[in-house]
């Protein structure tokens, strides 16, 4: 499937890649994509194992596609038909790995100037100086990576990649493990830097939050193929594919029958599965009697131990707790309302509300937390 991300700018990076990866067992994985990336941040989104890192490796020249063509900024980097395969050191494709891979034996400054070994001393110093400032790490120049905190290491890794004036920037989940605020600050600095350079940036993530925070354009990858591309809202909020919906954090995916449309209110009523459970969802392109899929995030569902009153939320369903399962600091509650819902609650809420399996509860669901899936 073709994925064209962003129509405003001409694509600066185009890649058509087919690569088969045989693992030890019988299972083999095929990456088969065609993407076009214009300047600015494009998110490559998908669950782990979808082929995101393999795609980046192929663009960077660390991995060789079985066939295809990769071009960036007017230069062909790989073309299986013409036998072109520019080696990684000559591609000028900057790559920040998830592990950052800063050289532990070199200082921050030496790390950053690593890619400028062929530049004259004076120019090298000037560029290193400028980029350390742009990423606010000029005070750390003499420190080794082992002495530097997480967020600062990420800044240095970005500076090291960008100081070489690359054609493209590939980021493989570079900001994992940082809190949202720090992440936003680093991304702001990255955007500020790229405002002048306008290179294409491919940003890999499987985190829904990062897509919301960064996304200008999203390419969604699943099992080695592009399943959709476009603005984040289009790609993720109306998930077209079940797996993608689950990857995007929609734990509840329910089939439903449309009962009636209330166009003036912008809603319609649907019956969930074969149950008697009826809920109100946003109006979609559907006729009464047709089947639709409704996706709901587990985190968007409220639990109450008494029938709630005076709420703006339109959907209140009575049910029984089937199971409670603790995952880290979160409890996954399964509630049977005729159909089974998955809801996330905190351990504190479980204690205060004395939630136990078998207990009768009410689920509260806002109309606009219900997403229609085509």
């Amino acid at each position: 499937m073709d994925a064209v991300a962003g129509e405003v700018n001409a694509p600066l990076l185009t890649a058509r890649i087919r690569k088969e990866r045989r693992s030890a067992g019988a299972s083999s994985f095929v990456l088969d994509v065609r993407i076009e990336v214009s300047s600015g941040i494009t998110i490559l989104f998908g669950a782990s194992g979808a082929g995101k890192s393999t795609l980046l490796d192929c663009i960077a020249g660390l991995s060789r596609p079985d066939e295809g063509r990769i071009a960036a900024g007017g230069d062909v980097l790989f073309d299986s038909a013409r036998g072109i395969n520019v080696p990684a050191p000559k591609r000028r494709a900057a790559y920040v790995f998830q592990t950052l891979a800063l050289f532990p034996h070199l200082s921050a400054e030496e790390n950053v100037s690593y890619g400028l070994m062929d530049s004259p001393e004076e120019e090298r110093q000037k560029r290193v100086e400028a980029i350390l400032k742009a990423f606010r790490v000029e005070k750390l120049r003499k420190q080794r990576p082992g002495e530097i905190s997480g967020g600062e290491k990420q800044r240095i890794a970005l500076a090291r990649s960008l100081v070489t004036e690359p054609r493209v920037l590939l980021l493989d989940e570079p900001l994992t493990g940082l809190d949202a605020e720090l992440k936003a600050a680093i991304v702001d600095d990255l955007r500020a830097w790229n405002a002048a350079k306008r290179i294409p940036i491919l940003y890999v993530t499987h985190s829904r939050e990062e897509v919301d925070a960064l996304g200008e354009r999203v390419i969604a990858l699943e099992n080695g193929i592009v399943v959709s591309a476009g603005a984040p809202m289009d790609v993720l909020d109306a998930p077209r594919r079940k797996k993608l919906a689950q990857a995007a954090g929609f734990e509840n995916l329910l089939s439903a029958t449309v009962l009636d449309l209330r166009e003036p209110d912008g809603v319609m009523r649907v019956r969930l599965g074969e149950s008697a459970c009826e809920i109100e969802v946003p109006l979609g392109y559907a006729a009464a009697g047709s089947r639709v899929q409704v996706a709901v995030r587990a985190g968007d569902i409220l639990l109450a131990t008494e029938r709630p009153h005076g709420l703006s939320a339109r959907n209140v369903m009575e049910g029984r707790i089937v199971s409670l399962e603790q995952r880290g600091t979160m409890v996954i509650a399964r509630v049977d309302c005729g159909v089974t819902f998955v809801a996330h609650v905190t351990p504190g809420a479980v204690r205060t509300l004395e939630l136990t399996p078998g207990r009768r509860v009410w689920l509260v669901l806002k109309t606009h937390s219900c997403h229609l899936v085509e």
Partner: protein
Amino acid sequence: MEALWLSMKLAACVAAILLLIGMPVAYWLAYSKWRGKFLLESLVALPLVLPPTVLGFYALVAMGPRGPLGKLWIALFGHGLAFTFGGLILASVLYSFPFAVQPLIASFEGVDRKLLDASAVLGAGGLRTFWRVILPLSLPGVVTAAVLSFAHTLGEFGVVLMVGGNLAGVTRTVSIDIYDHVQSLEYGAANRMALALLAISFAVLSVVYAVNRRVWTPWPAK
């Protein structure tokens, strides 16, 4: 003391040569994806299991005036290789090869592959990556390789006896000198030599273990 000096000279030459030859060999063995690489690995490890006399015997045959190496040497330099210091170096290099190569392979393999990828995408070719990333991060392995090949050469007996014989100042190394002294019942002289060798060996091995335990580190651990 002439024997001790000769042994030290031999060990230093061998250690230096082994580092030079060992690095490319170890690099290839650590990073090559060739399926038949186990064959070369076995060949490199061979001196570990062969009796020194077997190795020494073949080295002697090869270096003799009718051996291929001996013929070549005579054509080049006008004299034979057997029973000379040069011959001793050559045989010792073969004999101590695994002691240099194996620590190098282990430390090259221990370098995080992502660092090599990072170096490549930053524009560095294989040689530059080796000098700037692999070698500095493998320093403990390099020290171990140098010290072990030095120490191992210092203590060898069988190969030296086969290839070098027992010529004072040319091929009479410490271990052979000690053997000589014992044969002539000069236990005092044998003891002095033996003690010197013991002390040197202990000091040298202490360096290896200290480096690997990171008693002195050139950079802090992660």
